């Protein structure tokens, strides 16, 4: 990762150990697994299974489309809840204070958290798609599923930003409520739970302004949906990533000044 410095632990080794510890910590928080690994599968069982074998007029599988929607919901959820609630809790417990006095660089700590969230996103996608294939009988070439997964992982940056923003703005009591109040209605209004044409007119008008709408387009696009060009989705997501990460960074800096200034 960088040139070795005498008398310190190499950064790559630090990152590996810290990531393994973060994965273990997340594994031991049942609420986190329930919300981010089990809930998307449960939602798919309710909303996806009944229509799993239907096809759109152009021949695309409705079952795969809904699976992609809940895939977007699942990865976004890992990011918003892991960072939103996780960071709010760690701040309240003042975990950062002692870590700051150790040789662990804050950037390595942050990177370990992001890798951990990506690992959980992969697990969540594997469970969800596995459920859709085995229980729902939804079939797509493996390459298509991989493309859906890769696009969702790569496009998750705005949700990492949103999670950090919530985690640094709110305390541990408010953060879960705020995360739910923002993330659930936003997912619903983006057509992740039900197709947009079944939702009221004002929701259809709002949807194209929401990050999760363009995020799901990444996955729908991989299944051949004609609704939005890839470049347009990417631009919207990049814009939201800049906005959320910028606001999160401002809040973070203010707190850094107060705690370590």
């Amino acid at each position, binding site marked *: 990762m960088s040139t070795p410095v005498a*008398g310190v632990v190499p950064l790559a080794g630090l990152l590996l150990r810290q990531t393994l*510890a973060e994965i*273990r*910590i997340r594994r031991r928080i049942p609420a986190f697994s329930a919300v981010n690994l089990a809930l998307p599968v449960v939602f798919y069982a309710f909303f996806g299974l009944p229509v799993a074998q239907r096809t759109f007029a152009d021949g695309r599988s409705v079952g795969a489309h809904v699976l992609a929607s809940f895939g977007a919901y699942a990865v976004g959820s890992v990011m918003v809840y892991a960072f939103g609630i996780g960071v709010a809790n*760690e701040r309240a417990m*003042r975990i950062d204070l*002692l870590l700051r*006095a150790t040789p662990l660089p804050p950037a390595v700590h942050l990177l370990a958290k992001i890798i951990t969230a990506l690992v959980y996103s992969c697990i969540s996608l594997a469970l969800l798609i596995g459920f859709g294939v085995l229980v729902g009988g939804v079939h797509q070439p493996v390459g298509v599923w991989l493309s859906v997964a890769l696009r969702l992982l790569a496009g998750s940056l705005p949700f990492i930003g949103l999670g950090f923003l919530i985690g640094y703005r709110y305390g541990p009591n408010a953060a879960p409520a705020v995360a739910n109040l923002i993330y659930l209605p936003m997912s619903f209004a983006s057509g992740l739970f039900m197709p947009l044409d079944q939702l009221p007119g004002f929701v259809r008008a709002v949807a194209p302004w929401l990050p999760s709408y363009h995020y799901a387009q990444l996955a729908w696009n991989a299944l051949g949906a004609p609704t939005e060009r890839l470049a347009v989705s990417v631009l919207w997501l990049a814009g939201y990533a800049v906005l959320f990460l910028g606001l999160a960074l401002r809040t973070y800096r203010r707190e850094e000044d107060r705690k*370590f200034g």
Partner: protein
Amino acid sequence: MATVVELIAARKRFGNVEAVRGVDLAIAAGEVVALLGPNGAGKTTSISLMLGLRQPTSGEARLFGLSPSDRRARSRCGVMLQESGVTAVLRVAEIVDLFRSYYPAPLPTERVLALSGLTDKAASFTGRLSGGERQRLYFALAICGDPEALFLDEPSVGMDVTARRGMVETIRAFAAAGKTIVLTTHYLDEADQLARRIVVIDHGVVIADASPPQIKARVASKRVSFSTTPPLTDDVLRTLPARLLERDGARVRLLSGEPERLLHLLFERGVPVHELEVVGADLEEAFISLTSGQEARP
């Protein structure tokens, strides 16, 4: 001897409050130094400056000749802080192992657990520890990297007598091994047992910096204890050249710079004095009179 910690004309302002008002302090390798002072005196802020957890408003802090936030400097330090936390869902041995991985030449986990009295708690989740056990865990995390310099901010708060004694022994062993130790404490006997140098900080400045016997010698005060019935009233006390340390029924313990005049006044007023004891002030009393700012200020 090489200088481990250095504060050079360090000042730290928080809004309207200047917590540290120009501290010059150099601590050499192998020194065991206690920072003493009342709450809010600037001890914790001084330690934070030494460790780069706070940036000085003016002046400078150096750790092993480097910027205190330099990873090379931090890799040689172990730190125990007040009011810091660790995740609740790792087991004691797991978090000790994790912290060990931050340091280039850590102590073996079993040895860290033994030194901090946590061998029996190795498999417990950190969230389930009692207050005293938590404090021992923070001590374990401070020593696990086999640091050359150990910074302990109020290390024995919340520990019971046995645990405190154990920690004092471990700190002594570290000191005997040539480590540099900087600690703050409210337990003055702890400072007296451990430190070879005491730095008294009050209102953000160093008001004394000497060995424990020298600190005690700088205070002319004597401790005057006696029993009297009826108990001494506040009205009488206020007229005496003494500070009240303790009153327990008939027994009073006073600190006075003029013990002869004090006794003369008591006899003159016909106050019955039994079981009289006049002894040199111990460190705690020296500390009270140093920070109260009158008789002992040189």
